[in-house]
C-alpha cells in the first residue's frame, strides 16, 4: 500500500474539521484547568487540615490515574446519578480536571519560588496580607508560571485524541472514521501526526519566546 496524494486532498476538509474541534477542546480545557488548578492550590493552603488533606488526596488520585478511564467514568457512569453531559463538555471537564491537578503544582511552585526575604521585607514594610499578595508575591510569582502553564496546555493538546473514546469527533476520531470508510490508515494517521507536529513545533517556538519573556525575574 503506498502513499496516495489524491486521497490526502480528498480527506483534507474532514481532517481540518477535526483540527478545529481539537483546538476548541484544548482552549476550553486549558481555561478550565487554570481555574481548577487555582482552586486546588488555594484549598491545599487552607489552614484546615481536613480541607487541605482531602484536596491533596483527591488531586493525587486524579493525577495518578489515566485520563482515558476518567473520561469513560465521566461519560458513562455519571449519567447513572443523573449527570448527563454532551460529549465535548464531558471531554473538556475531564481535561480541565486532570490538568488542573498539574497547574495547581505550577501555582504552588511559582509561589514557593518567591524568596522568603520578599515576605519578610513586605512585613518590615508593614504591608497587610492582602497587599503582600497582590503587590509583592503574585507580581513575582505569575510571570515564571506562564511558560510552565503553556507547557501543560501543549501536553493537553496532544492528549485530546482520548476524547475520541467518548465520541467527540476530534482530529483522531475523524482520522479513524476516514480510515474506517476507505480502509486506509497510512494517510489519515500520518496527517494527524503531521498536524500535531506542526502545531507542537509552533507552540514550542512560542513557548521559548514566553520563557524568554517571562521566565525569570532579575534580582
Amino acid at each position: 500500500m503506498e502513499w496516495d496524494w489524491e486521497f490526502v486532498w480528498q480527506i483534507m476538509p474532514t481532517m481540518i474539521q477535526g483540527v478545529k474541534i481539537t483546538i476548541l477542546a484544548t482552549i476550553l480545557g486549558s481555561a478550565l484547568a487554570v481555574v481548577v488548578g487555582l482552586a486546588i492550590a488555594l484549598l491545599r493552603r487552607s489552614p484546615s487540615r481536613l480541607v487541605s488533606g482531602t484536596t491533596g488526596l483527591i488531586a493525587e488520585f486524579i493525577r495518578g490515574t489515566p485520563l482515558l478511564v476518567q473520561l469513560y467514568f465521566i461519560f458513562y457512569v455519571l449519567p447513572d446519578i443523573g449527570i448527563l453531559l454532551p460529549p465535548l463538555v464531558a471531554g473538556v471537564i475531564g481535561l480541565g480536571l486532570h490538568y488542573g491537578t498539574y497547574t495547581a503544582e505550577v501555582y504552588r511552585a511559582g509561589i514557593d519560588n518567591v524568596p522568603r526575604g520578599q515576605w519578610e521585607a513586605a512585613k518590615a514594610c508593614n504591608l497587610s496580607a492582602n497587599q503582600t499578595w497582590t503587590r509583592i508575591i503574585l507580581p513575582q510569582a505569575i510571570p515564571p508560571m506562564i511558560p510552565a502553564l503553556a507547557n501543560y496546555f501543549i501536553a493537553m493538546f496532544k492528549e485530546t485524541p482520548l476524547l475520541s473514546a467518548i465520541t467527540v469527533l476530534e482530529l483522531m476520531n475523524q482520522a479513524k472514521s476516514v480510515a474506517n470508510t476507505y480502509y486506509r490508515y497510512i494517510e489519515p494517521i500520518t496527517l494527524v501526526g503531521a498536524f500535531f507536529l506542526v502545531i507542537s513545533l509552533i507552540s514550542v517556538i512560542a513557548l521559548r519566546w514566553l520563557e524568554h519573556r517571562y521566565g525569570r525575574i532579575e534580582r
Partner: protein
Amino acid sequence: QDNAKLEQLKSQGFARVAIANEPPYTAVAADGKVSGAAPDVARVIFQRLGVPEIVASISEYGAMIPGLQAGRHDVVTAGLFMKPERCAAVAYSEPVLCDAEALLVKKGNPKGFKSYADIAKDTSATIGAPGGGTEEKLALEAGVPRERVIVVPDGQSGLKMVQDGRIDAYSLPVLSINDLVKKANDPNLQVVAPVEGAPVYCDGAAFKKGDEALRDAFNVELAKLKESGEFAKIVEPYGFSAAAAMSTTMEKLCTAK
C-alpha cells in the same frame, strides 16, 4: 495446489483472528475464552485444515481490514458483512452468518423510526453506530448527515447512550441488539427490526488479498460443514439461520448494489 500460507499456519499451530466482542457474533466469556458464532465456525474449520488453535484479538470494526492488510491478523471472523467495497479490499469466504439490521430505541419508539431514511428526515434525530460498520454506512447513504451519525465504540456504550437519551437510536444487526437488550433487561427499551429498506446481510471469513488459496481451502471445509448439518448445530443456538447462509453466495453478495 501450493498453499504456503496454510502451511505456515499449520507449522505455527494457530491462526490469528480478529473479532469484535459483539455477541452473538463474537464474544469473550468471563474466563477470557473466545466464543460467538463466527469464531466457533472458524475454529472447527481451521481444526479440519490442520490448524489446531485460533488466537483472537479484539478490534474495532474499522481497524479490522487495515489490520488484515498490515498482517496483524490472518483472518477476520467478526460479522463483517459483505459489501462490494469490502469485497474489493479483502478476499471473502462463502457466507457464514446472515442477519438483518435493527434499531434500538426508547420504549414506544417516540420518534416513530422505521428506516434510516426516517432518521435522515428528522433534523434533530441522532443515530449511533459502530465506526466503520455496515450500519454507519447505511445511515450515511440514507442521507443522515455526518454530524448526526455518532460513532460509538461498542454495543454497551450504544445501549447506555440510548438509555441516557444521548442518541435517539442505535443500530446493529438484529441478533446483536437482541443480545444487548436481553442483558440490559430494561423495560424502557424497544427494538425495531428489521429496519425497512435495509438489506439482509451475510458475513464471511475475510482473508487478505493474496491469501486466496487459504480462502479456497477454507471454503471447501465450510461447504462440507454446511452439507453435514454440523454448521446448523453451531450457529442456530446463537439465533442465526443456517438456511439463510446457504441460500446465497459470496458472488451474489459482492456484486449486489
